[in-house]
C-alpha cells in the first residue's frame, strides 16, 4: 500500500508535537536522555542522506559537527550583546555556511573515491579538521570556546535544549523525507545501487552526490551548533569524536541502512541501551554494548526495519 506523502509529513509533525510535551512529564534524567536521542537521531538522519540514500558511508561526519560548532561559537562571540534567539540563529547561519563551504571544497576530490576509500578519506578529513581547530590559534580548539546561556530566564536549560533538539531533528527528518520522495532522492538511490549504470542512464551522479554531501554536512553542522550550546563550553575533544563517527554508521546499521526512519530507530535504541540500561555498569558497559551490537547485527543484518520487512514477507 502506498503511503500518502501528506500523511507521512503530518505523522512526523504530530509525533514531534507529542514529544514536545516530554519535559513536562519526564523526570530530568529522561529529559537529558531524550536530548541525546534527538541529537543522535538528527545526526543519524543527516548522515543517512549521503551514507544511506547514496551509499557513500562517511566515517568522518564529526568533522562537520566540529566545524559547525566552532564557527558558530567564534562568530557569536563577536556579538556579545545580541539577544539570545538572534544569537542562536546567527550561530546556525554561521555553522551552516562554514559546513557548506568546507563540504563544497572537499566534495570534488573526495567524492571520486568509493566504498572503504571514501570512508577512510572522510576519517582523515575529520582528523585534519580536528588538528586545525586544535592548533590554529584563532579557532581556540585547545583552550576551549564558551557559549553564552541562551535558555530563556525561568526555563530549565535541559527542557529548553530538549525542545531545540526536537525542532532540529524534526527539520532534518522532514528534509530527508522530502529528498527521499523526490527525483533527486531516486537518483541517490540509483547511485547507491549501481553508480556507473545510473550515470549511463542519464542520472547526473556527480551533481547529485555533491548536493547530498553538502546537505548532509550542513544539517550535521546545525545539530553540532545545538550540541555546543547545550554543553556551554567545548574543546576539540568535545566535538571531533571518533565514537561519534562510528555511532552514525551504527544507527543506520541498527535501524536499517538506506531507510528514512532507520537511523531514528537505531539512535533511539542505542542511546537507550547505553545511557539507561548499561550506564550503571562501571567496568563492562562497553563490552556489553559491543556484544549487543554484534548480536543485533547477526540476528537482523538489514537492521530492525529489515527484520520487520522479512517477518511481513514471511507472513
Amino acid at each position, binding site marked *: 500500500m502506498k503511503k500518502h506523502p501528506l500523511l507521512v509529513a503530518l505523522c512526523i509533525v504530530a509525533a514531534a508535537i507529542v514529544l514536545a510535551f516530554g519535559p513536562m512529564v519526564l*523526570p*530530568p*534524567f529522561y*529529559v*537529558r*536522555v531524550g536530548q*541525546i536521542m534527538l*541529537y543522535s537521531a538528527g545526526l543519524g538522519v543527516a548522515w543517512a542522506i549521503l551514507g544511506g540514500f547514496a551509499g557513500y558511508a562517511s566515517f568522518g561526519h564529526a568533522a562537520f559537527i566540529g566545524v559547525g560548532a566552532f564557527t558558530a561559537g567564534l562568530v557569536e562571540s563577536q556579538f556579545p550583546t545580541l539577544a539570545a534567539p538572534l544569537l542562536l540563529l546567527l550561530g546556525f547561519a554561521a555553522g551552516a555556511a562554514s559546513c557548506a563551504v568546507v563540504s563544497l571544497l572537499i566534495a570534488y576530490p573526495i567524492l571520486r573515491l568509493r566504498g572503504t576509500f571514501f570512508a577512510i578519506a572522510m576519517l582523515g578529513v575529520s582528523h585534519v579538521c580536528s588538528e586545525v581547530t*586544535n*592548533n590554529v*590559534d584563532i579557532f581556540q*580548539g*585547545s*583552550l*576551549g570556546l*564558551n557559549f553564552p546561556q541562551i535558555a530563556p530566564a525561568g526555563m*530549565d*536549560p*535541559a527542557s529548553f535544549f530538549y525542545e531545540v533538539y526536537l525542532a532540529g531533528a524534526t527539520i532534518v527528518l522532514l528534509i530527508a523525507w522530502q529528498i527521499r520522495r523526490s527525483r533527486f532522492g531516486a537518483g541517490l538511490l540509483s547511485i547507491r545501487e549501481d553508480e556507473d549504470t545510473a550515470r549511463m542512464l542519464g542520472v547526473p551522479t556527480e551533481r547529485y552526490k555533491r548536493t547530498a554531501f553538502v546537505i548532509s554536512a550542513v544539517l550535521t553542522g546545525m545539530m553540532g551548533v545545538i*550540541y555546543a550550546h*547545550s*554543553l*556551554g*563550553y*567545548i*574543546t*576539540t*575533544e*568535545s566535538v571531533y*569524536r571518533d*565514537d561519534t563517527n562510528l555511532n552514525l554508521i551504527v544507527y543506520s546499521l541498527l535501524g536499517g541502512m538506506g531507510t528514512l526512519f532507520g537511523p531514528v530507530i537505531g539512535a533511539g535504541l542505542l542511546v537507550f541501551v*547505553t*545511557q539507561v540500561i548499561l*550506564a*550503571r555498569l*562501571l*567496568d563492562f*558497559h*562497553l563490552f556489553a554494548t559491543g556484544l549487543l551490537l554484534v548480536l543485533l547485527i547477526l540476528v537482523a543484518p538489514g537492521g530492525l526495519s529489515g527484520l520487520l520487512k522479512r517477518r511481513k514477507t514471511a507472513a
Partner: protein
Amino acid sequence: MAAPFVRTAKAQAKPLVIGGSVPLTGAAAETGLNVNNGYITAATYLNDVLGGVEIAGEKYKIELKLFDDASDPARATTLIQRQIDDGTELFLGSFGSNIVLPTAAITERAKKVMVQTGGGSDAIFTRGFKYSFGMFPRATRQFAAASALFKTLKPTPATYSVIYNNDAFSKTAAEGVKMSCDAQGFQRLDQFELPAKVTDVSSVLASVRAKTPDLLVCVVHDQDSLLIARQMVATNTNVKLLFQGLGPQLASYREALGKYSESILCSTYWDDSVPYKDPFFGSAKKFHEYYKTKFTRPIAYHVSGAAACIETYVIAMQMAKSTKSEAVREALAAADFDTQYAHIKFTPEGDGDPLNLGGMIGQVQKGKLETVFPEKAKSADAVYPALPWDKKA
C-alpha cells in the same frame, strides 16, 4: 572487651553517598584512572582502616557511586542527572574541563556541591558557580606561585620571555605565564611558539640572546626542556634564571644535564615528601604507602588530588556538622586546612587558591631538587641569579 563491640554494633555507620563520573575509557582514560584510584584510595582508607568518619556525632561510611563517562561530556551529563534524580547530594568531578563544566552546570542548577580535580579551565570558574570547587587554580592563574617567587628574588628580575609548544597543554600554560608575570609587573620581551615536535631551537635561542631576558620561562614537554637546556649550554645562551615547567623534576633530566642543571627551576605539583599534615593519613608518605597496598599503578599527583577531594569533603562536613549540600558548600568556601595533597583553600569563585593549590616550585641545587616555594613547604632558599653555563662546568 564486649562493651566497645556492643557500642559499635549499635552505632552502625550510615552510608555517605558521593556520586560522580570518571573517564575510565576514551581519550581521558589514562588520567581518569588515576583520579578514580585516588577516590577509591581515600574512601577505602576512611572506611576500612579508620572504620568510617564521624560527622556531628554520627558515624558514616563513604559510599562512592562513580560511573564511566567514557570521556564523553554528553554521557557524563546524563549520568550526573540520574544521580541527582536519585537524591545524591555530593559529587566528585570527572577529568577534563570539557566534561567538568557541563556536569558542574547541572549540579549547580540542582544546588548540589561538586569538588573536582580534573578541570582547570577559566570557563568553569567565571560563570558565577557557587557549588563547584576545584583542586587547581584556574588555568590562567596556575603560574601565580612561580611569578610570586620571582617577585621575591633579589635583585628583582625585570624582564622575561616565554617559550611554549603549539599544543593544548603548553598554550594554556603559556597564557597563565603571561597573565601572572604581566600582573606582577615583569616586562615581556618575547614569546616563542615551538611546533608540537621540536628538533632544533637554535633560531629561537638566537632571538633570546639578542634581547637577553632576566627570566626565560619554558612551558614545554620534558624532552623539549632538555633540548632547550642543552642548546642553551651549547650556544652559551645565558639568562639570570631558567624556569622549565616540566623536565628538571626527573632524575634522568638532571643526570643528562649534569652540573648544567644547577639552579634550573621547575613546577612540582606533588610528591610524597610534601610536608603537609593530614588529619586522616598523617602524611603524604603514609598516603603513598597505603596507595601501594591497593594499586600497582605508579602514583601520580592526580591520585593525591582526587583523594584530597574526599578528605576535603569530610573535613568540611565535620566543620559544618552536616552532610547537607548547602551547609557543606559554606564550609568548603571557608576551607583553610591541610591534607596530604596541599593546604586547601578556595577562591570565592571556587578554584584553588593560586598560592596554596598552585603547585610548588622546585630548584636543582647540588644535583637534588629542593622545594623553594611556597614558604610552608620549602626545603631551601632559591638561588638567584644562576651562574653562567661556563662557570657551572
